[in-house]
């Protein structure tokens, strides 16, 4: 039975329309994976000695203190990046295949996931080092097995809650709050969690508890999937009550208004676009890496400009790079109607403009870190509007990924984003403003650097028409390839 599933899986991979880029991307992913494994391995071997040298305390205790953060971070990574076991279940429902087998295969597939295996590269060497350093072997074994069960429990927990944004985002917020309070010494959650993990070592048979948890998680996810395997239950699409929205106030803008209306409806009524908006909100906090001086190398003002661009540009980048793919489901309609590309592009541009302005206003609180910090954000916003908005639309014209508006597949990382032309456009998007700033800073002064970046942004506005015309030509040239690519439902 499982032979069949594996065969189906293999065929679906090989025969995917995007196989060639899938393959290249997969190889790239493998390299990233190997890099992670190597890093983990080195950490696993070296962590014990590093912690000892730094005189932080007993290495096992220290590792156990941060275990809770490690586990939650692991869950977050899985949520965002681990692929869910998707089998085309509908066609299998009425075949002579036991539903239990389908569910079992899907769940066991996740066990082999890289996200499970990679932790072994840290824990196995670490445990070995522990034993060689004189820790009680039975204790270490218990600890090791217990922790491992917890990571696998994470695996099944993720499978169950993978689409529940309502749980995920509060969880992240909670973890961030705990981390911040630990950092500032207000509340130390590890004081509570550390003994739990330590107990796995001290009293080895307590390792049974994580394993019980693991089995529980497996059974829970099994029954969850099993229960939802009916066409009218889990597989049925939920129907929401629709409201006809008029947006009459946009009518004064003529054709531009027509497209704006649709784009607003697109963003509001589709899962994938809503995710993009949420991601843009997260971008608003990007500056915290830079401005809290947590990493010293990032303290130079040049990096402030870098951060400034991302803070105001979250929506611009995450929405803009997928234009026109947002309309991929009905691209034939758009191509056969009397639509001026210029007006179409303009409406997307205005959307990005509003979003950038709103983001800039919403980041006023960054003034807490200093006026020049907010200046960097303002300047970054001007640059975004004046130059990056066009570049992002330009790059998007080369990306031919169909977007399923109703699901979040690939929302967090798109294979086709590794398109050579698109990456080439990253240079003026990010490196140019940094370069301009540095020139101004080095030759004249800090403020001059900011002013120069802003000026470049304003100048960019002059090129708006020209770039739109270039994009229009690309749309027309790539029309047939794009139509073909969008019709691949994969």
């Amino acid at each position, binding site marked *: 039975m499982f032979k069949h599933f594996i065969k189906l899986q293999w065929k679906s991979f090989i025969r995917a329309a995007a196989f060639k880029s899938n393959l290249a991307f997969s190889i790239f992913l493998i390299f990233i994976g190997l890099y992670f494994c190597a890093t983990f391995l080195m950490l696993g071997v070296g962590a014990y000695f590093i912690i000892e040298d730094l005189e932080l305390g007993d290495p096992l205790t220290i590792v156990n203190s941060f275990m809770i953060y490690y586990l939650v971070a692991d869950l977050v990574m899985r949520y965002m990046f681990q692929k869910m076991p998707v089998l085309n279940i509908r066609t299998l429902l009425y075949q002579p295949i036991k539903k239990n087998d389908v569910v079992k295969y899907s769940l066991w597939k996740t066990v082999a996931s890289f996200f499970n295996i990679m932790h072994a590269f840290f824990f196995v060497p670490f445990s070995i080092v522990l034993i060689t350093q004189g820790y009680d072997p039975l204790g270490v074994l218990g600890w090791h097995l217990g922790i491992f069960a917890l990571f696998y429990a994470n695996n099944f927990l993720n499978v169950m809650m993978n689409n529940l944004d309502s749980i995920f985002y509060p969880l992240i917020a909670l973890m961030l709050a705990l981390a911040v309070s630990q950092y500032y010494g207000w509340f130390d959650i590890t004081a509570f969690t550390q003994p739990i993990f330590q107990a796995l070592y001290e009293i080895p048979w307590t390792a049974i508890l994580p394993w019980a948890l693991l089995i529980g998680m497996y059974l829970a996810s099994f029954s969850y999937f099993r229960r939802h395997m009916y066409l009218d239950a889990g597989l049925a*699409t939920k*129907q*929401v*009550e*629709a*409201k*006809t*929205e008029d947006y009459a106030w946009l009518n004064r803008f003529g*054709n531009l208004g*027509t497209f704006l*209306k*649709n784009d607003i*409806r*697109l963003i509001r*009524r*589709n899962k994938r676009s809503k995710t993009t908006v949420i991601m843009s909100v997260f971008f608003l906090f990007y500056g915290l890496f830079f401005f809290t001086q947590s990493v010293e190398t990032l303290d130079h003002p040049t990096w402030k400009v870098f951060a400034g661009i991302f803070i105001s540009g979250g929506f611009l980048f995450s929405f803009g790079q997928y234009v026109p793919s947002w309309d991929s*489901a*009905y*691209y*034939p*309609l758009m*191509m*056969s*109607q*009397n*639509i001026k590309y210029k007006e179409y592009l303009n409406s997307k541009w205005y959307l990005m403009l509003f979003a950038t302005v709103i983001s800039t206003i919403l980041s006023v609180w960054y003034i807490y870190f200093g006026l020049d910090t907010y200046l960097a954000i303002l300047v970054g916003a001007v640059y975004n509007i004046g130059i990056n908005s066009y570049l992002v639309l330009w790059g998007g014209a080369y990306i031919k990924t169909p977007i399923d*508006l*109703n699901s979040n597949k690939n929302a967090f990382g798109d294979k086709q984003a590794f398109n050579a032309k698109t990456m080439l456009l990253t240079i003026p998007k990010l490196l140019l403003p940094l370069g301009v700033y540095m020139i101004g800073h080095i030759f004249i002064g800090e403020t001059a650097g900011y002013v120069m970046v802003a000026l470049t942004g304003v100048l960019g506005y002059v090129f708006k028409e020209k770039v739109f015309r270039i994009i229009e030509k690309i749309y027309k040239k790539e*029309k*047939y390839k794009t*139509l073909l690519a969008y*019709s691949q439902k994969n």
Partner: protein
Amino acid sequence: MEHLDIPKGQSFGLVGNNGAGKTTFFSILLDLVQPTTGKIISNEVDVNTSEAWKPFTSAFIDESFLIGYLTPEEYFYFIGELRGQNKADVHSLLSQFEDFFHGEILGQKKYLRDLSKGNQKKVGIVASFIGKPEIIVLDEPFANLDPTTQIRLKSIVRDLASNQDVTVLISSHDLMHVTEVCERIVVLEKGDIVKDIETSEETLRELENFFSGSLAN
């Protein structure tokens, strides 16, 4: 296809077995696909090189012509705005199709993606009438429609066809419908025109003979 001439105002039916090239032909007509050789000239406009055919051409091929996250009303107004029709114009057009909609389309509080396939089709077909287009292209409009709707659609298309300013191009698998509705029928096989008939009483039998014959081939 060597050569095909479709005069203005004709109601033109395209039939053929699967893979004959009906949808491909329509796709080329709408410049969604490039022909390997040759071209289509619509009203003296080469569809491949110019976009001037878009204002007077209208089509409904499949669900990729529908915007799933819009309600039917929003979709109609959107198409109307693209064709210079205001809300009132769209309303007066839609009122003619109340029967056709059977109360399941307007005022339903559903997005297009949540309508049944048949209702989605109704929306697409009626939307193609908005703005008084001169060419209307419908790919297998009768498929997936319930019997009542099929009959109503036939009378709608016949009315359209009698209007000499509108050229209607329809493809279908249903020989009966297409003979009742179109004044000219072209049979495609593997991309070639094998029959070009002016519809008469005999046409249905002629077509049935032809297609049962191709089974034997």
